[in-house]
């Protein structure tokens, strides 16, 4: 299955005008400066925000089409969405959170083992660390057997060490997933490490020169990790 989108939305300071396409088992990373429209794009993919015009298809299913006035609710899109933080339900323990919309609750045990949080099943979200919460959020998203997995800066609130560990866990998991994955980050190292395809977004539009310009400008922090594989830059725009 392939998710393909082409939509526009007027924001306060700029217009989002973007096209993207991502196949099953592949991860597309949306990268760019903060406030550049990445989150709006991923929210439009999820159906949490409505584009002004355009279309969004998942395989043969039309999720949004402004001309035909189709707008499938997020509830009907069968998504996995990992937010930056605060998305776990505070009144439930970690297991109940992950099993909230699980297709098979037995799988949640396996996911907890995979992410090494099976000893925290009975804890509430405020009783565990940020990294453990995000592991649980990923379990919650995966337990739903999503047709599309969306991750909106899921590790940005975490410390560097935890972040690196989770990044590696996600990368090893990626190969086992059979859905398209769209990942939002502003961290170039993270993008290069995880992505099959990178789509730089600046002021709501694809800007394929952004990464090169940023790396040249910031030779310290922004430089890609040594040995990181250069992913294919998106040619769909």
């Amino acid at each position, binding site marked *: 299955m392939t998710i393909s989108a082409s939509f526009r939305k007027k924001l306060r300071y700029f217009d989002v005008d973007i096209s993207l396409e991502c196949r099953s088992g592949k991860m597309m990373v949306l990268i760019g400066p903060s406030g550049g429209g990445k989150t709006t794009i991923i929210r439009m993919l999820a159906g949490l925000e409505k584009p002004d015009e355009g279309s969004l298809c998942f395989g043969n299913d039309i999720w949004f089409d402004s001309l035909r006035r189709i707008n499938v609710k997020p509830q009907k899109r069968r998504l996995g*969405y990992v937010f930056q933080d*605060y*998305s776990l339900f505070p009144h439930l323990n970690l297991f109940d959170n992950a099993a909230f919309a699980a297709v098979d609750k037995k799988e949640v045990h396996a996911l907890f083992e995979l992410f090494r949080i099976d000893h925290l099943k009975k804890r509430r979200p405020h009783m565990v660390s940020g990294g453990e919460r995000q592991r649980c959020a990923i379990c919650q998203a995966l337990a739903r057997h999503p047709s599309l997995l969306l991750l909106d800066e899921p590790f940005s609130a975490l410390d560097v060490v935890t972040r690196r560990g989770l990044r590696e866990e996600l990368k090893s998991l990626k190969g086992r997933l059979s859905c398209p994955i769209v990942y939002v980050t502003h961290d170039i190292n993270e993008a290069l490490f995880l992505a099959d395809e990178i789509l730089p977004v600046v002021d709501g539009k694809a800007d394929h020169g952004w990464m090169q310009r940023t790396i040249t400008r910031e030779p310290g922090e922004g430089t890609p990790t040594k040995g990181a594989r250069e992913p294919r830059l998106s040619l769909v725009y």
Partner: protein
Amino acid sequence: MDYLALYVTLKLALVTTAVLMVLASPISYFLAYTRFPGKSFVEALIYLPMALPPTVIGFYLIILMGPKGWVGSLWEKLTGGSLLFTFIGIATASIIYSIPFAIQPMKAAFAKIDRRLLENAYILGLSKRATFLRVIIPNSLGGIAAASILVFLHSIGAFGVLLMVGGSIPGETKVASIAIYEAVEMMNYHAAGLIALSFIPISYAFLLLINKLSDGSRA
């Protein structure tokens, strides 16, 4: 001691609280999450009973619930009886009188819930109704409990509105506050004192509970 008046008071407070918890929660949800033109006017109208003198509310309720009022005449058509001077009549009056005390804390509790939680619930396939029942309500229990305690306390203390709408029929509409008033009128300070004294521990215990709940929600 007028146990019958105490019984009517507690029955009235429980009925008012139960009905308002069911009735006010969807209204509070709507007010917390919906924007519409004239919202502030609607909200002011809902909170009006808090600002009006009880006798003014009582007067309009008599007009509305009397045999010529549309509520009273409808009730008469349906049941063949009058709404005024009955327990259902004072319960209706008490519900209207206490609406703001139910809606305000509930609306505040609902509005405090992080929007991302709701969005996550939608992403996980929950309808708006299911999100309300499975996410919003369990995460607003402090506010709902505070609302129910406020309504309960407000109902047991009601006087003017109930006297106008229900009069003082023992076992039917004569509540404790009216019993105290009548006992004082008859210079029976001992009887008035006993009923009055019974209010203090109840009200104090409930206020302590509210404080505990608001401390808990702040922590």
